[in-house]
């Protein structure tokens, strides 16, 4: 990859010596960005864990109101999208343009499917008055105040995750156009790899959100 040939590459920016160095810098940059993302979500996870431990009953009661089937379906959808993302990266490394387009397209569709399911879930929460605020009503709850706190955290955490999904889908759309124009080759496919890291990260956040919000104490002694 190195040598005089690579330095001629049109995608090589002036301040790098070769494409390898440029790729390594981009990848390290993305890993660091993901570290900042972990700390960003970390603040919310901390808040959630503290309140979950402080008010286990209220949180268990409130979490029963979440639709575990839809959440499970979404988990499967996201894991599948990680697979298609990995395939897209592989296709870029191999320089296969049509498979790149296929897998990027599938990733976008799966991402949209996730958001669609999420929208259905949100709509149900609005219908059942489970959105924090003056309209919040939770019939039969022993501790409605802290159940409302659960839903505050639920909406901030899943909302921020959904926002990351929207950004990810936007990235995929840009990659799709770039791939269609033949911008990626065996020698240069940094954007696909780096965006792939981001996509997997957003998936992993959900892998933590799903059990924390939907599954803990699902069959525990609530009443």
């Amino acid at each position, binding site marked *: 990859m190195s040598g005089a040939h690579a330095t001629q590459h049109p995608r090589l*920016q*002036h*301040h790098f010596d070769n494409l390898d*160095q440029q790729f*390594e*810098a981009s990848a*390290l*940059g993305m890993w*660091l*960005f993901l*570290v*900042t*993302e972990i*700390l*960003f*979500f*970390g*603040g*919310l996870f*901390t*808040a959630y864990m*503290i*309140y979950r431990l*402080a*008010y286990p009953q*209220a949180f268990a009661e409130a979490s029963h109101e979440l639709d575990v089937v839809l959440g499970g379906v979404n988990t499967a959808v996201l894991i599948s999208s990680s697979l298609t993302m990995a395939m897209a990266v592989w296709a870029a490394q191999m320089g296969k343009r049509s498979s790149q387009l296929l897998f990027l397209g599938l990733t976008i569709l799966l991402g949209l499917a996730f958001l669609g399911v999420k929208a259905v879930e949100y709509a149900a929460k609005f219908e059942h008055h489970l959105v*924090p*605020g*003056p309209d919040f009503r939770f019939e039969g709850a022993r501790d409605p*105040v*802290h159940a*409302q*706190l659960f839903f*505050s*955290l639920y*909406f*901030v955490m899943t909302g*921020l995750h959904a926002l990351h999904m929207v950004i990810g889908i936007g990235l995929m759309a840009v990659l799709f156009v770039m791939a269609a124009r033949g911008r990626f080759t065996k020698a240069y496919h940094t954007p696909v790899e780096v965006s792939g890291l981001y996509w997997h990260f957003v998936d992993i956040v959900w892998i933590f959100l799903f059990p924390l919000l939907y599954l803990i104490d699902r069959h525990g002694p609530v009443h």
Partner: protein
Amino acid sequence: MDTAATPHSNYLTDGYGLKSWLLTRDHKRIGLLYLLSVSAFFVLGAVFAGLIRLELMTPAGDLVESDVYNKIFTMHGVIMVFFFLIPAIPAVLGNFLLPIMIGAKDLAFPRLNLLSWYIYTVGGVFTLWALVNGGVDTGWTFYTPYSSAFSNSNVALVVVGIFINGFSSILTGLNFIVTVHKMRAPGMTWFRMPLFVWAHYATALIFVLGTPVIAITLVMVAAERLLHLGIFDPKLGGDPVLFQHLFWFYSHPAVYIMILPAMGVMSELVAAFSRKRIFGYEFVAFSSLAIAVVGFLVWGHHMFVSSQSVYAAMAFSLLSYLVAIPSAIKVFNWAATLFKGSISFEAPMIYVFGFIGLFLIGGLTGLFLAALAVDVHVTDTYFVVAHFHYIMVGGTIMMYLGGIHYWWPKIFGKLYHQGMARVSAVVIFIGFNLTFFPQFIVGYLGMPRRYHAYPPEFQLWNILSSAGAVILAIGYAMPTFYLIYSLVKGKPAPANPWGAKGLEWETSSPPPTHNFEAAPVVTEPPYNYAK
């Protein structure tokens, strides 16, 4: 950009229009964009400081109403902390020097670097918008539930402004870390890097690890205000103390964001003007990392009176003492570097001595505050105000100005008036001590912070402090004049006016667009002075 640089062209002459500056990707030009915006915010923050000192000349709260006073000290804090002290040294000097010092042509991500300046600007616009719209009155700490449930001022606007501004810090930090890892010139090993670079590496770690936490915390505050969620609101089941934990988890390390780059500048200056290798290079380098790491474990010392468990308080107290160790290592190593050095008293060196004086007082009074019993007595008094001004302001500004004076000939290729610069350093040192030392005394005597009226027996100390502020203002204004004058009438600077070591002195003044005429190869240890 595609024209080959001739020996006489440099980054300042490479394009003249406004567009060549606003769309530049050159880290040196971006550093200068930051210099302008950071200076503008400093002037604005200083005006609010002036209003505070004016109000406190008399015991009666007679200049402004108490709620206006609340807004004045809040805007002073917000602007100075988030828009001056945090970005000052890294975004101006770090941006300009870090790539040159390791022999790189630019930072790893030049477009991201420019973006971070725009993000900073947008964050600043939000904050100024809040100011024009009537200001904000929560104090720069935005404690809940006041900020989330009660304040009727522009909390959401300012919080959003600081949230946006945080991403400029994050991107700068990310850029620095990747640049240090991947862009070093051949022969520039980790232990040949200038200590300025080590300090900025440690700072960048805090940028990257700390800033996201304040960002999410401010998102939660904004969500409470705008969407009526209740994460920190007791009425809705939340806990306001959680906000304090999350806030200080960033905002305490933020103090090290301010002081670590200052320490980096300090190491360069001490070695250059003692003509000696820095004493204990590895210790100074690792003490920067130690400060960055331990700095993340001490946030609880802001909460000794906030219903925190007494055992947590004891642990945080001990850990806070621990931070003093790497800081002391640095001071002792600088002193040992000065020892038997060929010291010359150029203007930047006067700032070095000013830094040592202010940092010593600020650091030692920090130990008072880490002690549980003393802290309970002086919490929320002017003792705390004096302490953090000595560290954050005294330490950071002394080295910000020291660094500006040291690298000015490199940045602009002009020499300034040495005598004037020496005088301004002395005036700032005197003015600073006169402003803030009386606040230790009046705080210890029990004067609380954040009130516009106070008992008459404290007036003497407050008048001394306000008088000091006038001297300080003169000291800060002086460099503005003779430095700008040097741009017009100053003699051209040679490549290495101080006879200092380091790659930045091996390229021309000002440097060419790509920093070096020929790619540098490093063959000698850092600070390779005769002694």
